[in-house]
């Protein structure tokens, strides 16, 4: 038969009892062989579970799906007229509501235009986001894995058409984790991969073309920051916040301009 104290012993094991009860239970365990065995079992089970079961992580595709769903959710809610609070809303005459409705429709149309128009004029944005998402899939992230810029940079020479600035900014929170070649805009572009916290930042670079560089934008939940340095164009893509992404962009720009002066 099970010892009447077994649930208390379990609670003790789980750290759910105060110091006074703990002392009490420890005294009990000293002369109860059954509860000693129980404690041992509990410890064994916990060790086995925590040692053998690898903690699962949500796959990057799911991250992307959720961000997209949230984007849609946010987009649906944004154009709603919320200038008037819910309580005063009902007291407004009908025509105010009607005008509000028309206004919000106009806002929605404008937003839709602003959001959709770059994709009509610039497939590059879609390519960049697609390349970024693809890179997050298993074993697609890096072709050369190194935190050493003297390894990553020469690798690009043989594998891509461009030679971008490469540096490890671990001290500023951007760890260099490697490089990759991606086919983008009809040329082999160089991608430098950084890690910032739990986020991956892909920095694409390609030879500057005649067309104007797109402005910074957000697509499918990913931020894209563009800049030009020398004869190369760069784009950093990630799901980090804007501040973090622009922080890396600034570091890389500074580095380019220092390289130019040297």
């Amino acid at each position, binding site marked *: 038969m099970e010892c009447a104290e077994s649930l208390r012993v379990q609670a003790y094991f789980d750290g759910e009892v105060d110091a006074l009860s703990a002392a009490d239970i420890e005294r009990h365990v000293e002369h109860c062989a059954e509860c000693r065995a129980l404690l041992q079992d509990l410890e064994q089970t916990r060790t086995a*579970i925590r040692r053998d079961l690898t*903690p699962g992580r949500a796959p990057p595709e799911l991250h992307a799906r959720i961000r997209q769903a949230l984007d849609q959710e946010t987009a649906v809610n944004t154009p709603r007229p919320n200038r008037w609070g819910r309580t005063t809303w009902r007291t407004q005459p009908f025509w105010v509501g009607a005008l509000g409705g028309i206004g919000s429709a106009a806002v929605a149309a404008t937003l839709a235009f602003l959001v959709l128009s770059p994709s009509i004029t610039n497939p590059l944005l879609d390519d960049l986001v697609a390349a970024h998402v693809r890179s997050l899939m298993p074993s697609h992230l890096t072709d050369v894995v190194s935190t050493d810029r003297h390894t990553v940079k020469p690798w690009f020479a043989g594998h891509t058409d461009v030679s971008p600035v490469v540096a490890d900014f671990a001290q500023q929170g951007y760890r260099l984790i490697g490089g990759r070649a991606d086919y983008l805009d009809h040329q082999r572009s160089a991608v430098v991969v950084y890690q910032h916290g739990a986020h991956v930042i892909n920095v694409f670079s390609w030879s500057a073309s005649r067309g104007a560089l797109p402005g910074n934008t957000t697509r499918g939940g990913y931020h894209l920051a563009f800049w030009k340095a020398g004869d190369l164009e760069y784009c950093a893509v990630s799901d980090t916040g804007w501040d973090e992404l622009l922080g890396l962009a600034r570091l890389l720009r500074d580095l380019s301009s220092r390289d130019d002066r040297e």
Partner: protein
Amino acid sequence: MDDKRGRFEAEVLPHLNAAYRFARWLSHSPGDVDDVVQEALLRAFRGFDALRGSDVKAWLLAIVRNCHATALKQQQRRAFVPLPEEHDPRDGYAMIAATTDPESASIRRDDARSLERLLSALPEEHREVLVLREIEDLDYRAIATITNVPIGTVMSRLARARAGLKARWLTEVEGERRGVR
């Protein structure tokens, strides 16, 4: 709106891995896990304004659990409608056997896989408390919130889950190695 999104990303999304793990342990079919987690995150986002200073992880996992229950009910309804006459109680076992890893026979000696399988074989109400306690490292109060039962029930289920796992583990190890571990 952006502010809400920003706060949500900062406070809730860090628990996405926990939500995913929990959904995986709840569900017998891996294909549904992504849908359940996505639905849970959307519901969480919609209800985020109502959340005030409580345990975000427990709150999110409770939503995951609800979404899993809803998905399961829909699935059962779909599954039962076409073949109401032929339902046999033994089908349940056949389904569980079919959904466990087909490779399991060849890697039965792999401790991790055995453990995972044994844990999956526990009754759901035992499995979930054990997973929340040992893998997500949650306290009794949080587990009670998520599973919507009193703390006393959490304690007794946890005890039965641990005893059940231990018993199955011993049987398995004895059966395979003819020795007690």
